[in-house]
């Protein structure tokens, strides 16, 4: 009846369906579940999609992607609805990344959310499952309807997840802001998809994209611009980036999933998917590159001045996805896809590790809450270091370096200016990554050192260890990924490679220069006192920290700490950045500008329409009634003293007075009435007599 033809390829449906089933079971109210059952369901729904995904992806990596799988095709009159899933190299790669990260994050949250109430726990995992299902749906979509379904559901889930703490006004505001701003993007994407549908007369992606490339009549730039707009909004790129830093009000696992592989990265995935259309419009491609570069630089600079670790990571995501956009803009979507994978790994790792370290910290998610990580959570600390190193792109030993190198090489071929911007981004990225790592390396103040959190369980350790190794070792995948997606490894002159390799180190030095106190702390052998200095500590000190400290001291031309921190060049840079970008925790300038330019006028308009000030609620709706009233005043009120009516009234009044005087005759006494009768009879007789008497 629905035109569904059952094949084994339809098993592709199970990938999002497993997560969706998890959502439905957890969301189903009549089902009474205990905490243990919720946890089991959460893990099943979170890890479950990975299994079919692995099977399908492996098949695909061996060169036999099953391609589009029609679910059902429906032709009604002119309209054709052909829903389909699709497993091509891109969706296999991204889908696998998403399901791995999703599984890791959900495993981790089983431990992270352990203390929450039962109902909230259910809601949390149900929404996480829905979120994961939505992203998988979007990634595996073979037609624009399913694509948009996943895309839009993600927006809704992000709203509900960011506002997960429903008693916090700030969280609710942040969720709403994210939802409204991404909805702008959604509207643009919807317009693009509908226009593509009109061009292709089909909703299938394999028909849409060629039709988009072949579009005439000036349609192609419009479609490409709308696609770009959609991606920018969802990926929090300039100028629609402001929702992401606020979205940190959600729980840490939500941020980990939101930032690394889903929601925010979805914009990049979308542009990679529709890259052929973008490639056909050089102007928009250039715009993508410029916006990406600007966002990358801006995000990195903003991250440098943040005092909150989650906000820092938020700006980092903005910046990193900016570099992906840049890469897409210079015509190397494959390199962007590779960086998407690597970024997903290290960003989720950073969030999870930071969340683990700062969980239950009295400082919340402030950067300072990371202090003492080395003592309290050595493994999480190591994982954080691995993530930060990968983010910074330390040469050769981290995955981040490889993907970044590929992108930088691609950018070099597009032009030196963009390359310089990208390089500056790389330096700043390394600087803020190092800065965060340095804070984490500091010992905690004595007051906090004593308190120890619950010990780590396998639920946290396994994802951290797995992702940590991934963040370091996945570099070997970059080249295969690019080839797998049908691209070539970009080549660039050797000197640019060398410069790019120095960039992270320069950034790290910059960070050390910025935090003069921090430069001393890595060697606190005395301060750890009686504690056994762990192998980790020793290895780190000898291999990483000490050489850096020497380098920093050398850069500063002195041996001791810096006396006047504001006086040094790098510190001045930070002060300047902070002033320009308006503070580490306050909303940034763009946020305030939007508030003035859009939010407040909108509110004012709504208020005006609702009768604040002028006093008329719904002025237009009252127009007919007011018009009638005015008509009445003009016509009826002019005739209001109705003269005829007035005469009638006067007659009535006269009758009334006659009646009252006549009434006075009625005494009710028999004698009076008798007299009246006699007089009347006499009068009548007289009258008769008078008539008869001629």
């Amino acid at each position, binding site marked *: 009846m629905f035109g569904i033809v059952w094949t084994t390829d339809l098993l592709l449906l199970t990938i999002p369906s497993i997560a969706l089933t998890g959502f439905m079971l957890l969301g189903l109210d009549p089902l009474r579940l205990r905490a243990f059952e919720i946890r089991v369901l959460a893990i099943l729904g979170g890890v479950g999609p990975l299994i079919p995904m692995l099977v399908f992806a492996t098949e695909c990596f061996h060169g036999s992607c099953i391609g589009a799988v029609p679910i059902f095709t429906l032709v009604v009159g002119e309209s054709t609805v052909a829903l389909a899933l699709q497993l091509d190299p891109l969706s296999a790669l991204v889908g696998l990344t998403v399901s791995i990260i999703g599984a890791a994050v959900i495993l981790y949250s089983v431990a992270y959310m352990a203390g929450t109430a039962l109902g909230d726990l259910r809601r949390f995992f149900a929404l996480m499952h829905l979120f994961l299902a939505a992203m998988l749906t979007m990634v595996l979509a073979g037609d624009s309807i399913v694509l948009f379904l996943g895309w839009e559901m993600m927006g809704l889930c992000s709203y509900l997840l960011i506002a997960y703490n429903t008693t916090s006004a700030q969280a609710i505001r942040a969720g709403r802001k994210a939802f409204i701003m991404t909805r702008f993007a959604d509207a643009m994407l919807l317009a693009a998809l509908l226009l593509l549908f009109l061009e292709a007369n089909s909703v299938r992606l394999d028909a849409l994209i060629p039709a988009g490339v072949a579009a005439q009549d000036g349609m192609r730039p419009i479609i490409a611009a709308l696609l770009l707009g959609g991606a920018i909004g969802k990926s929090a790129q300039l100028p629609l980036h402001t929702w992401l830093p606020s979205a940190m009000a959600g729980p840490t696992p939500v941020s980990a999933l939101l930032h690394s592989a889903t929601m925010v990265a979805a914009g990049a995935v979308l542009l990679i998917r529709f890259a052929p259309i973008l490639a056909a419009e050089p102007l928009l491609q250039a715009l993508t590159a410029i916006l990406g570069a600007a966002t990358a630089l801006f995000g990195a600079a903003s991250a440098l001045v943040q005092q909150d670790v989650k906000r820092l990571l938020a700006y980092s995501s903005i910046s990193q996805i900016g570099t992906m956009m840049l890469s897409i803009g210079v015509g190397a979507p494959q390199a962007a896809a590779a960086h998407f994978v690597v970024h997903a790994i290290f960003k989720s790792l950073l969030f999870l590790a930071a969340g683990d370290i700062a969980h239950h910290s009295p400082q919340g998610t402030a950067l300072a809450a990371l202090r003492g990580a080395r003592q309290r959570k050595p493994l999480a600390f190591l994982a954080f270091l691995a993530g930060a190193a990968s983010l910074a792109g330390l040469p050769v030993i981290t995955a981040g370096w490889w993907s970044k190198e590929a992108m930088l090489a691609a950018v070099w071929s597009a032009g030196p200016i963009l390359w310089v911007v990208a390089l500056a981004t790389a330096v700043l990225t390394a600087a803020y990554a190092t800065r965060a790592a340095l804070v984490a390396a500091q010992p905690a103040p004595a007051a906090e050192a004593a308190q120890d959190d619950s010990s780590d369980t396998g639920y946290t350790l396994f994802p951290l260890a797995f992702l940590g190794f991934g963040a370091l070792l996945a570099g070997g995948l970059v080249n295969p990924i690019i080839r797998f997606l049908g691209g070539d490894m970009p080549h660039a002159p050797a000197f640019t490679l060398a410069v790019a390799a120095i960039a992270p180190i320069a950034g790290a030095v910059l960070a050390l220069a910025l935090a003069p106190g921090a430069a001393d702390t890595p060697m606190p052998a005395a301060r750890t006192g009686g504690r056994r200095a762990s192998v980790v500590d020793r290895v780190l000190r000898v291999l990483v920290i000490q050489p850096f400290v020497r380098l920093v001291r050398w850069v500063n031309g002195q041996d001791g700490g810096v006396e006047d921190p504001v006086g040094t060049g790098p510190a001045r840079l930070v002060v300047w950045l902070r002033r320009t970008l308006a503070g580490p925790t306050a909303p940034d300038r763009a946020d305030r500008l939007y508030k003035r330019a859009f939010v407040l006028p909108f509110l004012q308009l709504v208020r005006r329409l609702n009768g604040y000030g002028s006093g008329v609620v719904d002025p237009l709706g009252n127009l007919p009634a007011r018009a009638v009233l005015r008509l009445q005043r003009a016509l009826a009120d002019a005739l209001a003293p109705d003269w005829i009516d007035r005469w009638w009234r006067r007659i009535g009044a006269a009758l009334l007075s006659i009646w009252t005087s006549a009434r006075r005759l*009625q*005494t*009710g*006494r*028999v*004698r009076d009435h*008798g*007299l009246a009768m*006699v007089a009347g009879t006499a009068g009548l007789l007289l009258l008769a007599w008078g008539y008869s008497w001629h």
Partner: protein
Amino acid sequence: MSDTAFTGLILLAGALFAVGCFGVLARRAILVQLLSLEIALSGPALAFIVAGARHGQAAGQGMFVLILVLAAAEVALGLALYLRLRRRSDVTDSDTLRELRH
């Protein structure tokens, strides 16, 4: 019947009626008013008889009988009402009975 006798009797009849009328209008005792009413009725009754005798017609006497019946009925009704009033609220003064006004 001579003209003189006729005139005299008619005047007598008028006088009887006038006396009755006066009694009804001037006296307040209900019983007296009823008596006066009887007197007033006898005036026209006499006038009918006189007129019948004068014109030699029997209709005058017929009318007399009618008035007699009328008076009897009226007295019966009046006395019944009077007795009822006495029994209910001991009223003899007709001026106090003003409820009909309303």
